[in-house]
Every structure is written in structure tokens, then in C-alpha cells.
């Protein structure tokens, strides 16, 4: 996964000289998670820039650069630190096009790992997608495979709007086939059916996609055929693909690492309720992160994140089996 992201960055830096990368430790140290390995050497210190530990500051620099016509990629060491930069992201990046009457587009990507890692406790394990997806003017992307990561990151960099590109720390080591084609991109706002099925739909994103696929495999053995859909882009959300699937299966489970309250699953549930009410055979079921700050203890941490068993139980519940 980290190599796929690296490849996308490298190709886009090479393709367009207005693209540049900045963030904490992205240059000399080659990235806290080595996503930016080799980029300083290849593109030099004007294109790959180490910043001080000043999230609000360098996010603001990025927005300004984007207004001036560049295409910045801003790395947050994790999205937990993006909280410090929200004024620039939400008040500047998201609103500039609207408030300038269309004079300033902001072609910027904010990227980094989101969600849980391994025992980094409450402040460093947050899944913040629902925050950013909430605001008009931002796009939010969450890949679940190396190929999707490459294709989606390239599209995000080429997009003229600010894009929040959320990776997952637990998934950096994930292996998968990645197209080498430099023009391989995946359009934003298009979901992918990761597994076809008849009896129940599971919508999952990021870390929950491999978890949901394992649950679907196990459920198949129990006689329940699951369709697994990865929206890939949270905003704009490809609700049509989800609704089509629910019309077929009549049952929906949404799995997510983040908290349930005011979350993305809640939004999907509401959309499905509005668009496919007559097709539902059971209430839409959310499988979300437990509603507590992420515990540090390993055993409690495991209990706080949805796992295969919880998804299976939810699917069985909506399938009345």
C-alpha cells in the first residue's frame, strides 16, 4: 500500500511541475510511514518540503499556494494532527471557491493515515472522515486496496477541489496488484462492488473492507450470500450503487471504524431509508467503533474496533437467521 501511494505521488510530481509535497518529516526522513521515500532525492527540496510542527501554519501555506495556482499535497503525520489545521481546511480550503464567487479554485490534497493504529491510545486513533465529509466544498477519499490507493490519489491530485485523502496506518503493509500504467486513475465518487451477493449488503470503507470480505466469506459457508460495497469516496458518495444493491438484497449493514453517532454509516442509513424504504426487510444495521475514546490496552482496543464476528452477527440479525 505505501509503495502504491509512493508511486502515485512520484508519477504526479513528475507529470505536473505545479504539484509539490509538504509536511512533517516528508523530505529528509522520507515520511513517518515511508510513503514519501525517495521523493526528495528525485524531485529536490523545492518540490518536497519539510515543515515545522505547525499544522495550522503549513495547511494555510498550502491553501495560499493553491490559490496562487500550485497543486499542493499536504501530508499530516496522522489525521489526528489535522485537527489543529481545521480552520484552514474548513474555513479556507472548503469555502474559498464559493466565497470568492468562483475566482479561486483550491486544488489541494490533504493526506495521511486516519483511524486506529496499534496501541497509540485515544488521541492518536481517531477516524475523522465524518468531520470532513460534513462540509460542502471538501471531497473525502478512503482507499481500501493498493490499486485503489494509487488510482484514487492520482485523481485527487488532479482534482481542482480540496480533497481529504485518508489512508489507514494498519493498512500500509497491505499487499496487492497495482497497475503500472501512469494514466491509471480511478474517478472520485464511484463505489466498487468488492464482492457480489444476494442476501445482504455490507457497505464498508478503508480498514473495514478486508474485515467485511472475511465476514462475507464466513457467512457464505453459513448460507448467507453477502454483497460487499466499498464507496471509496465518502463525499461525493455513490449512493446509487448502494441503493441498487439494497433493492436486490433488502438488507443493509454498514461497517465502520469510526463512532456511530453522526457518522458516515448514519448518513448512508438515512439515504437508504429515503431512497429504498420500500425495499427494506430489516432496519439498516450499523457496526461502528465503540462509543468511547480509543483505549490504550491492547485487549480493549481490539474490542473497540468492529471485527469479523460483529459484522457476521449484524448480518445474521438483519437476515433473521
Amino acid at each position, binding site marked *: 500500500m505505501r509503495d502504491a501511494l509512493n508511486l502515485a505521488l512520484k508519477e504526479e510530481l513528475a507529470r505536473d511541475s505545479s504539484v509539490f509535497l509538504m509536511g512533517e518529516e516528508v523530505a529528509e526522513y522520507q515520511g513517518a510511514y515511508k510513503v514519501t521515500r525517495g521523493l526528495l532525492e528525485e524531485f529536490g527540496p523545492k518540490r518536497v518540503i519539510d515543515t515545522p510542527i505547525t499544522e495550522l501554519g503549513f495547511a494555510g501555506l498550502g491553501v495560499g499556494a493553491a490559490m496562487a495556482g500550485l497543486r499542493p499535497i499536504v501530508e499530516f503525520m496522522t489525521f489526528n494532527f489535522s485537527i489543529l489545521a481545521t480552520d484552514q481546511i474548513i474555513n479556507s480550503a472548503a469555502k474559498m471557491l464559493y466565497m470568492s464567487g468562483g475566482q479561486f479554485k483550491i486544488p489541494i490534497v490533504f493526506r495521511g493515515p486516519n483511524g486506529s493504529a496499534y496501541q497509540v491510545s485515544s488521541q492518536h486513533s481517531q477516524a475523522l472522515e465524518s468531520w470532513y465529509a460534513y462540509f460542502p466544498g471538501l471531497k473525502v477519499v478512503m482507499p481500501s486496496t493498493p490499486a485503489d490507493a494509487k488510482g484514487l490519489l492520482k485523481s485527487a491530485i488532479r482534482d481542482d477541489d480540496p480533497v481529504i485523502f485518508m489512508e489507514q496506518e494498519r493498512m500500509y503493509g497491505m499487499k496487492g496488484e497495482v497497475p503500472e500504467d501512469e494514466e491509471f486513475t480511478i474517478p472520485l465518487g464511484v463505489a466498487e462492488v468488492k464482492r457480489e451477493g444476494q442476501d445482504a449488503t455490507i457497505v464498508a470503507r478503508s480498514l473495514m473492507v478486508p474485515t467485511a470480505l472475511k465476514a462475507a466469506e464466513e457467512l457464505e459457508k453459513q448460507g448467507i450470500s453477502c454483497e460487499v460495497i466499498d464507496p471509496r469516496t465518502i463525499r461525493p458518495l455513490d449512493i446509487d450503487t448502494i441503493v441498487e444493491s439494497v433493492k436486490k438484497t*433488502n438488507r443493509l449493514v454498514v461497517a465502520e471504524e469510526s463512532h456511530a453517532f453522526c457518522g458516515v454509516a448514519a448518513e448512508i442509513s438515512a439515504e437508504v431509508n429515503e431512497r429504498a*424504504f420500500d425495499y427494506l*426487510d*430489516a*432496519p439498516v444495521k450499523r457496526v461502528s467503533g465503540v462509543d468511547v475514546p480509543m483505549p490504550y490496552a491492547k485487549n480493549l482496543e481490539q474490542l473497540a474496533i468492529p471485527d469479523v464476528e460483529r459484522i457476521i452477527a449484524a448480518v445474521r*440479525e438483519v437476515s*433473521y437467521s
Partner: protein
Amino acid sequence: MATQVVMPKLSPTMEEGQLARWLKKEGDKVSMGEPLAEIDTDKATMEMQALSNGVLRKILIQEGESAPLGQPIAIVGEPDEDISELLKTASEAKPAKVEAAPKELPEPDAAPAAEAKAQEPKQAQTTTGISSDGKGQPAQAEGRVLISPIAARMAAEAGLDFKTIQGSGPGGRIVKKDIETAMSGKRERPAATAGLRPMPRSGEKGVVYGPSAYRDEPVSEMRRTIARRLVTSLGPVPHFFLTIEIDMERAADMRRSINELYPDLKLSINDVIIKVAAVALIQHPQVNASFQDKTVRYYEHADIAVAVATENGLITPVVRAAEMKSLLDIPGEVRELAERARARKLKPEEYTGATFSISNLGMFGIEEFTAVINPPEGAILAIGAMAPKPVVKDNEVEIRQTMRVTMSCDHRVIDGATGAKFLQTFKQIMENPLYLFVG
């Protein structure tokens, strides 16, 4: 978590139970399935099992005392748990409040379904005792029918009245599967029978049959109207009676011949009647049926209850799947059941859950009589004495062995013509008993 143990329903007609003996003392450890007490019911003394693990914290009724179904009789919980709340509710508990259960069922949109599931077993234990599992209840909470959106739409499109369908989802919610079942049931409704169909094959010797399988079909609007109107006339079960006279010459001959071949068998006419009734029932599934309020239940097998008079009163042991059993098997089985009935040794499952009953007063010389249906069965056949009688045959008077049988029918499920057709088949086979051997 501590729970109240309530007086369980240990026999189908039980309304209260007397505590014969506690098998555990306060403070004893109990585990699920372990016998907790002996309860005297109206039929027999039965063991009552613990439904949870823990310690018997408090005994609420003493040996010799009675309690209505559902009344708390003990509390089981952890040794150090606070049970004051449970004690308080137990002392306030009114006998088996049936309407208490639906009230606690969550509205589908009011609480996460997981919670509803978690509550179900609790309710079963604290309000209705052993027999209830919370499923198969009419799909209503507070007078509303619970149905999933797609199930409602499918029912509307198929022209089904979903009020007649029992839901299998949480709280009795009607779900897609229930509509699909109801729709397939609609298609499979058996056609009315004309004439005799081939004999069902006899079952393997030695096969033990449990209570008959069945399918529930929704009650049609017309059937509902018939039921509603008739039930107001004759009492809870609207009976009507059909009598037919049967020439028993051949049946009596056959019985004699078989008993000559198998002297130890002691085949009685009653045994033959059981077999013939069972075979005829399979050909007339509308009679092998029972009215279940929301559905009409059609049974696959003819489980025939035979009324046996004992010192203590009437009891009705059941010959399961009688149509599958041969005339060589039935006499022994009936005799054995009757003996144990007289000794009060029948288990509840041996005298309940029949699909049809036979009552025979022929041995007392009763020529014909009407029997009272044993609900929820749809009919009962009253057998009169077999006696020589003058009958007109080919314009001449002949003396023939005849027998009069009267069937009482539950008009909510069986109409006059339906019952009459069954009796026709019964008569046909009885008068041509060789039919039993050509299957």
C-alpha cells in the same frame, strides 16, 4: 443476572401448579437444565428444570402451595447479588399477565434490534415460563401489525391480507420470508378430492413417528367471516354433526380372517376404524386440520387420538401417523397406550397434539351419539355399536351388520360438504376394506 423463576406450563391444559417438592434448598447451586422442583399439574407430577445458572437465592412458595402459571416461585442469581428489586416485583406480581409481554416488545424503530433480541429470553423466563420463545406470536404490538417495508409491499402486490400472516421476525415482525412462505402456501393448496386416491405407502416397520409435521395457511377472508359468525352461535367451537350408516359385513369378515391368521393380534373393529379414518384423512386434508385463529393448520400425518375411559376420567392417547401403520401394528400400540393411560403413566406428548379423535361407545351398546371436539382438532368421530339390522338391498330386505358413525366438525374449518365427502370416503373404505391392502 438474577432472574425470577415462574410457575411453568407443564401440560397443555395446566392453569396452575402445586409445588410438590423442592429439589434444591435456598443457597444451593443450580445449573441450567437441572431439576429444581417437582410440580403437580392437573395431569401428572412433573419435574421443573432450572433455566439459568446460579444459586437458588429465594424460595417464594412452599411445598404444598399452589401458584398460577407465570407467578414467580423462586429467584435464581449470583450468591452476592442484590435481589431486593426482584423480591419486590415478585410480591407485586399478578398471575401470568399475558398482555405484559407485548408491551415490553420494542417498536422496530424505537430501539436497536440487538437490544430486542437480548430481551427476548429474559421475557420468556420472567413472564411466560418454559414454553414461550417469543416467536410465532401474532405480529402485533399495541394493536399494530409489525411488518417490514418490503414485506408490506409484496403483500400488497400479491393481494395478500398480511394481518392473517404470522411474523417470524423480532417481536413477531412479518418479514419478506413470511410473505414468500404465505405465497407459496397459496399455490400449494390441495385440490378437493374426488373418489379414492391410491393408498399411502405403509411406513417402515419399527419407525417411531413424532407429532405430525404441518403447514399453516392464512385464513381467507371468507373463512374468517364463517368463523366469526358461527362462533357467536354455538359457543367457542361451533360444532355440527354428520351421521352416516356403514355396512360392516366385509370389515367384520376381514377382521375375523386376520385374527384367524394371527390369533395373538386381537385386532378389534376399533383398530380397523383408526386405520380407515387415518387413510381417509390423508385424502381429505381439509378435515385433518385445525383452526388456529390466524391460520388454518393442515397436518401431514393423521395423528389419531383414541378416547380411553379411566377411573379418573377420559384421556386420549395418540396413535401417531396412523395412516403409515399397518393393521398388524395398530392393535398392540393402542393396547399398550390404553394400559399406560389407565395406570396414569402417559407422558404429555403421548396424549396431546392429535390431529383427529375417535370416540367409541359401541361396546356399551350406544347406537349413535355426538362427541365433543377436543380443540384445536377440527373433528371427532363418534362410533356407535355394530349390530345386525334389516336393510333394503336390491329391493329386498336383508339382515346386515351395520354401524352408525357421527362426526362432529368445527365449522370454522370444516364445512358441511367437506365433512360429508370425508365420511363418504370413510364409508367407501370401510365397506371395501381390501382397499387397505392394495397400497
